[in-house]
């Protein structure tokens, strides 16, 4: 272990020695100026130039002009700009230069940000990396930059959050490389490591998702995002790179015309446009209207039958509601409950640059509400500065600082009774006057919310929690980074980097008392903090050996620390003393107090990486990183905490090497790479497992309390944990035709993760229920295809289109001996499980609450495989219903996987003169989701799926029920009766096992089932078949359509502005295709955990339309 540190010290000593041997030489200087233009003579702004062999350089101004001091006449100026071939110009005796750059049709000099934020020529990459430009992110008018990535990068899957603008989205790159509770990639923003967490509701109840750290990142400051998908690409991040890395570059000051002030304002509106597929024909009740003593018809009250939707047909005529008001008999429109959400963002940036430095300062103020009328809002203020400065002739300083202050209110409740979509369909009739109760939930006389008979629909609690409960949260994130670059010799440079991020989260919750006189209620507060730091040093050597070999070699090291703080929380106990005064001091009883611990960890690393390029055509690159992680140490000082991750790759541009290729083949590259990434484990887990912990207090019968402590868990510790290790090979090709007008980028990869660190179940009879193991094999293999084309490029008109295709197979090859499943997520309580099972796909959904399938010992029995009907537990009216597979002794049933089959997207950019337009379609195909809204909401006849069989005209069968009443709403379920289902005919018992229900009806053994009971029993909590509400979730979304217009210079001169751009953007406009049942929102997952497959509440379908104006002064 000590070896590593000695090595680190040695590297740094070498570093020092090299530095001390460097001496600058002063020479005669001369000033040169000039203009850079393209072939057509248009001046090119922003072209960077460099005096070869020095650090002197800069960028051309808005008119393409530059000015530089060169050491001598023999100096050479190098000009480069993305999209153009770089050009070297000898200064000679000239003092004014006119430089013309050639457009780079082969894009040989494309650069991409990789590794530690350095740029690398794309041509040298041996792996796939995709860059998304900042403009493509800000255009989406979305507070969360993760959502902006949707459909833009092959290999990346995004699920949008559903709790409002603050809620977290799920991002997954090339499947789940791990079974752990978070498989999201590492984000690196200006060298600061950002780890998006998981949040949201769970299967046991409602949750409000305040999201993870991604919501605190301001898209306005982003220059570009590069997604490093494969292990070879991300291996330099070692233990943190198992799930891929997204490197985010922020903007630097640029040369601008005019004042250098840029102002952007965006207003976008979100509208709910579609609700669930509800039925609008029948209102509350199970039969005809009862008639009051005054002869007025009334909503059916007896036995709480109003929860059902099998009452009279809507006729628009007056009826007396449960609370005595007269209302027209009509279906409600739940969409009216929702409001128009607003996204208003102001961004001001001031920037400038000269040949010695650059500066950019920006402010963004975002106010973002959503369709939920519960005060749901996110207000984000972000301040960002970045400056670069050359110091002397060697050092280059790059300093950035970013501060975000984010205020959030009431994320939309998901996962339970307090979500409006769920609430308005579950046990609530279609005739419920939502609008009235949304305005009249408060008791105007007694105070508090209406209760008892004044709240006959039991809806006031929902309204109270929606409109009166306030959950507030404030997050402050400060992030700063200092890069000191130096060029020691023409071939040797270094980088020293230090950064910190500090986060302070505070929040409060409050609710006025719901009881008469506003008694009760609560107020709570919490505060938590977390800090992290990273110090890094790299020594970089670049040299050209002879004409054929370009070599780059880098060594470095870093130390990362996360210092978790404590989370302190306090809440009032027993209600508020003085109603509506929200203060901890206003508690009835002694405050409830809590404190939790955020974990701390440290990872140190040493690395070496570089590449060798032969004849500009063949590049070999490699990297190796060694990590030391605190999480793999044990309290006794043991632990295998040092481990390494190597990677190597080869890129061959065959169009450079081979002659006589057809002219239509403009560029061709083949690439192959092989690399390792991995991970450590959770902080403290090596020392916490198998120990004891305080369990609070136990209250004795006399009310006194004693302290009580017990086991911290029931897990067998593992004293030999090793790091997780993933290896991945990747092959790819980048081939372009017709001067780059058509390009294909194809990748095939295979990633295998071993030594997963898991808690796996063991026989509970041993006194434990799990053991910490270090085993398993998880495979992800797949293909990614990107097709880029410019079908039209004529005069002012240009159309670029690209197609992304992603297919990943995420399979579990092995767990540990004796175990074949691992639970990833739950739905409907624990009724449906998302599991990893050996030999199956990740996220296989299994449930003992599926339809039981009839099995007889006689293989020819036609009943085999049919759904089984029997005496299901807890059925309404005691009617037989479908039996659950588990209850019928068939155990759990496999329903399929939640993982998608493939993803596809199409992005189009059209330019016509000063107009630009974008159109994006993206689609997900295959993969199951479960819906609590569908299951429980279907039970009472709210959905259109319950229209069949309600009466004679909808297919109901006529029969006489046990009470002797003749009914027309009989349904004869498809399926056969369970073995052991007996009826007594005369004195004989007859076993109906295997008999179709229809036959049992024909023979008079059983009656049809009234429609309301049939649907209720099929999907209600107590007897429902969960399989009924687990379905394929495929969709194609018209994700984005935008049109922009650049006001021409001739107009701008008159209004004295430098630039003006107006654009209109529509997001999430419509689903062109979707398979989610009965109008369930396909983007409705209630958390962003990796195994999540459940919707429970969700939201109506909504779309955003916005206008953006960008002014440069």
């Amino acid at each position: 272990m000590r070896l590593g540190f000695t090595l680190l010290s040695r590297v740094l000593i070498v570093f020092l020695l090299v530095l001390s041997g460097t001496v600058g030489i002063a020479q005669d200087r001369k000033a040169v100026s000039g203009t850079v233009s393209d072939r057509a003579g248009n001046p090119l702004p922003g072209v960077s130039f460099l005096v070869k062999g020095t650090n002197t350089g800069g960028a051309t101004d808005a008119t393409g002009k530059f000015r530089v001091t060169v050491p001598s006449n023999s100096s050479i100026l190098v000009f480069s700009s993305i999209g153009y071939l770089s050009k070297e110009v000898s200064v000679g005796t000239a003092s004014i230069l006119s430089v013309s750059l050639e457009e780079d049709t082969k894009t040989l000099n494309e650069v991409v940000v990789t590794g530690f934020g350095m740029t690398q020529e794309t041509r040298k990459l041996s792996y796939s990396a995709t860059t998304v430009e900042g403009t493509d992110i800000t255009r989406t008018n979305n507070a969360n930059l993760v959502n902006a990535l949707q459909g833009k990068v092959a290999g990346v899957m995004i699920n949008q959050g559903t709790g409002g603008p603050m809620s977290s989205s799920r991002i997954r790159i090339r499947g789940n490389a791990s079974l752990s509770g978070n498989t999201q990639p590492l984000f690196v923003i200006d060298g600061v490591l950002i780890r998006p967490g998981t949040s949201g509701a769970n299967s046991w109840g409602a949750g409000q998702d305040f999201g993870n750290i991604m919501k605190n990142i301001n898209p306005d400051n982003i220059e570009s995002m590069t997604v490093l998908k494969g292990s070879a690409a991300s291996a330099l991040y070692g233990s943190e790179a198992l799930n891929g890395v997204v490197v985010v570059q922020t903007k630097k000051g640029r040369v601008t015309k005019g004042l250098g002030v840029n102002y952007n304002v965006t207003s976008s509106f979100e509208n709910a446009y579609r609700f669930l597929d509800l039925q609008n024909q029948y209102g509350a009740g199970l039969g005809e209207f009862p008639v009051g003593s005054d002869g007025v018809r009334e909503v059916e009250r007896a036995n709480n039958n109003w929860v059902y939707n099998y009452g009279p047909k809507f006729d628009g005529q007056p009826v007396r509601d449960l609370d005595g008001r007269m209302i027209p008999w009509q279906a409600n429109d739940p969409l009216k409950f929702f409001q128009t959400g607003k996204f208003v963002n102001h961004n001001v940036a001031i920037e400038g640059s000269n040949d010695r430095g650059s500066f950019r300062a920006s402010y963004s103020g975002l106010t973002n509400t959503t369709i939920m009328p519960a005060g749901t809002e996110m207000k984000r203020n972000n301040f960002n500065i970045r400056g670069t400065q050359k110091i002397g002739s060697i050092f280059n300083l790059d300093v950035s600082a970013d501060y975000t202050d984010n205020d959030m209110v009431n994320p939309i409740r998901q996962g339970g009774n307090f979500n409006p979509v769920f609430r308005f369909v579950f046990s609530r009739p279609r005739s419920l006057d939502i609008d009235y109760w949304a305005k009249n939930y408060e008791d105007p006389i007694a105070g508090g919310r209406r209760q008892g008979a004044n709240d006959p629909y039991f809806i006031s609690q929902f309204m109270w929690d929606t409109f009166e409960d306030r959950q507030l949260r404030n997050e402050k994130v400060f992030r700063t980074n200092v890069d000191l670059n130096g060029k020691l010799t023409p071939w040797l440079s270094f980088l020293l980097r230090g950064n910190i991020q500090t986060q302070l989260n505070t929040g409060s919750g409050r609710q006025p008392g719901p009881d008469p006189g506003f008694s009760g209620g609560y107020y709570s507060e919490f505060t938590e903090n977390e800090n992290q730091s990273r110090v890094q040093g790299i020594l970089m050597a670049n040299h050209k050996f002879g004409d054929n070999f370009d070599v780059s070699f880098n060594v470095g090291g870093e130390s990362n620390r996360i210092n978790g703080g404590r989370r302190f929380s306090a809440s009032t106990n027993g209600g508020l003393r003085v109603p509506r005064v929200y203060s901890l001091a206003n508690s009835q009883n002694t405050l409830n107090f809590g404190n939790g611990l955020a974990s701390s960890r440290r990872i140190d690393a040493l690395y070496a990486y570089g590449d060798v390029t032969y004849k500009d055509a063949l590049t070999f690159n490699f990297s190796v990183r060694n990590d030391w992680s605190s999480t793999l140490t044990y309290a006794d000082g043991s632990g295998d905490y040092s481990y390494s991750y190597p990677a190597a790759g080869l890129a061959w541009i065959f169009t450079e090497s081979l002659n006589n290729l057809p002219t239509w083949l403009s560029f061709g590259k083949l690439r192959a790479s092989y690399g390792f990434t991995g991970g450590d484990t959770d902080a403290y887990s090596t020392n916490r497992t198998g120990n004891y912990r305080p369990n609070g207090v136990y209250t004795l019968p006399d009310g006194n309390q004693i302290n009580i402590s017990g086991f911290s868990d029931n897990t067998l510790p593992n004293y030999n944990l090793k790091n997780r290790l993933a290896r991945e090979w990747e092959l790819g090709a980048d081939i372009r035709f017709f001067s780059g007008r058509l390009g294909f980028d194809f990748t095939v990869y295979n990633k295998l993760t071993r030594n997963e660190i898991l808690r796996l179940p063991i026989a509970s009879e041993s006194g434990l229920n799990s053991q910490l193991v270090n085993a398993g094999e998880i495979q992800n293999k797949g293909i990614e295809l990107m097709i880029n084309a410019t079908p039209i490029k004529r005069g002012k008109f240009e159309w670029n289109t690209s197609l992304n295709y992603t297919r990943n197979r995420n399979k579990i090859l092995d767990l540990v001996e004796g175990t074949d499943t691992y639970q990833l997520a739950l739905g409907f309580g624990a009724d449906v499980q998302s599991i990893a099972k050996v030999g199956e796909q990740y996220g296989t959904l299994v449930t003992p609450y599926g339809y039981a399938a009839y099995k007889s010992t006689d293989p020819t029995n036609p009943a085999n495989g049919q759904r089984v009907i029997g005496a299901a537990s807890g059925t309404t009216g005691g009617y037989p219903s479908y039996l659950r597979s588990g209850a019928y002794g068939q155990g759990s049933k496999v329903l399929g996987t939640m993982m998608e089959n493939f993803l596809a997207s199409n992005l189009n950019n059209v330019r016509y003169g000063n107009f630009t337009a974008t159109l994006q379609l993206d689609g997900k195909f295959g993969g199951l989701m479960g819906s609590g809204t569908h299951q429980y909401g279907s039970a009472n006849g709210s959905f259109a799926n319950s229209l069949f069989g309600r009466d004679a005209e909808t297919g109901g069968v006529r029969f006489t029920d046990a009470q002797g009443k003749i009914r027309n709403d009989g349904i004869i379920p498809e399926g056969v009766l369970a073995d052991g289902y007996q009826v007594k005919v005369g004195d004989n018992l007859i076993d109906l096992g295997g008999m179709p229900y229809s036959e049992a009806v024909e023979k008079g053994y059983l009656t049809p089932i009234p429609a309301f009971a049939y649907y209720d029993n099929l999907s209600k909590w107590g007897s429902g078949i969960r399989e009924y509400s687990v379905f394929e979730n495929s969709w194609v979304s018209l994700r984005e359509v935008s049109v922009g217009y650049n006001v021409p210079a001739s107009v701008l001169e008159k209004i004295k502005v430098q630039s003006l751009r107006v654009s209109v953007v529509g997001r999430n406009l419509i689903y062109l295709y979707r398979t989610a049942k009965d109008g369930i929102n396909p983007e409705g997952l209630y958390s962003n955990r990796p195994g999540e497959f459940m919707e429970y509440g969700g939201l109506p379908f909504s779309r955003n339309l916005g206008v953006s104006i960008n002014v440069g002064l």
Partner: protein
Amino acid sequence: MKFTKYKYLLLGMVGLLTVSCEKQAFVDVNIDPDVLTEVPPQNQFLNATSAIHGQDFEAFYDIYRRIMPWMQYTTDLNGNQGAFTQNIDNFSSRYGRLYNGIGDRLYDIQKLVEDLPAEEQPRYTNMIRIARILKAYYAFYVSDIFGAIPYSDAFQGRYGGTLTPKYDTQQELFTRLDSEIKEAVATLKASPTAPQISLGQYDQYYGGNAQSWVKAGNALRLKIAMRQLKVNKGPAETIIKEVLAMPAADLMASNEDGWIFTAFTGFTQGGNWDPTSLRAPKPIVDFMWKTKDPRIDAFFTPNLFTQQNVDRLIEAGRLPAGTTAPERRYVGSIPNPDEAQRPENVRRFYTPARLVVAGQNVLVDTLSFIQPRLFRPSQAANGTAGNGRNFIPVITYSDFAFMRAEAAALGITTESAKAWYDMGVVNSIRWYDAIARGSNFTNYTPVTQAEIDAYMATPEVAFDASKAIDKIASQAYLHFIKQPTEGWANWKRTGFPNANSVVPMPTLTNNGAALNIARRAPIGLPNPNNPNYLNQKPAYDAMLALPGFGKDLQDATGRVWWDRP
């Protein structure tokens, strides 16, 4: 020398990177400051006891939804529905609790003591024995409906022992438990070699009193032996005689000796304990009404036909003027599904009148409920939350007396069956009277001696040697309403009550077909991926070979080893 400052700068960076690079720095970062490496052993005793009695899932599924309706201690709101006895979803969480929550905690007491300095260890001799008695009780409670379970090898995973414990057959287990309890009782009676550390407040049964635990241990030995009377007659009778031959001071002699878990109000506060949907059953209510059983108001609530509600119904035109509240307001619900669904019964019992009083819906229910604070003292009555204590029995003195009465009636002992029967009944009444006051029962009137005397004299109650077992078991059945799991075992063991017993338990039918009542837990099918499959499979196969075990493991109507016709 312009570069000197850069060297300092770099030296500074080197310092930053190499400072505290020792491994110890990493080790220190990874230590959770909140972790405890040891705890006082008595903590685990309390953890285990609150796990035994604090199982809201068991209350909801096993007790309220399964055993109580099966045993006709209660019915569904509208009477029992359909083939309700076939519904065994979520039945029995006790098995899992033994291994994670109870047995492992109690076993850990011994292990925690072993980690103490040698001179400290003798001070925990009694604590270990008391924990062992409690562990034996719970292992018995689990095996009682599961049959063979791992025990002798169990609980050892945490200490480097086996992760795949073998199964003990029920016979082996019962024998082993008896000898463990016998040893514990003997040790508790012996004078200790060192002053003992008492469980004190961590013991919610007896406050750590060793002599009380001697009585509890002996009662438990008796209970386990009584279970085996049919299948293992000789050894069982030997144990019974041995226990009852103990000095009087070692045997329960009053309700104060009872093995009862006492807890604060909030212990059963969770929603799963809510008993509001539990109807009083017609057979028991009718018996108690007829015999003027003093416990009737401790067991059940009166229906809502108060004079006030009757007057309101008159006002609403639902009852003729001049109607008075009925004298009998204890009315039971029908346990038999076919009966409950008869239209005349639906109309008569299951269609409560609804009134709106002062803006509030009032339901005038014709039927009685289970006394809400019998199981949940915090239950609100008239808008006021209860604040009484919880009393959750393991072995009450009545239970002990009924066992003695039965042993006498069977001729195993020469004691007076009548005397112990009377002792059982009277002390049951007194015990319910005590907990009714301790738990602040609603609508409760304290018992008088006159009521008891009158009750004991009624023909249905007075002891009758010609049907001694029927009398004893029927009264035990009533007594076990607070402990339905024992009521169930009592029924399996004695065959009483039944359709013709003193307290009747009518046959249940659905669509005319008799419903079979479960006698054991449905056992999960062995999964080859279960890490303990190699032990589990043969143990289950052996049970399947037992007569009457059922058509498969899941068949809850089958019988475990001790349960003989």
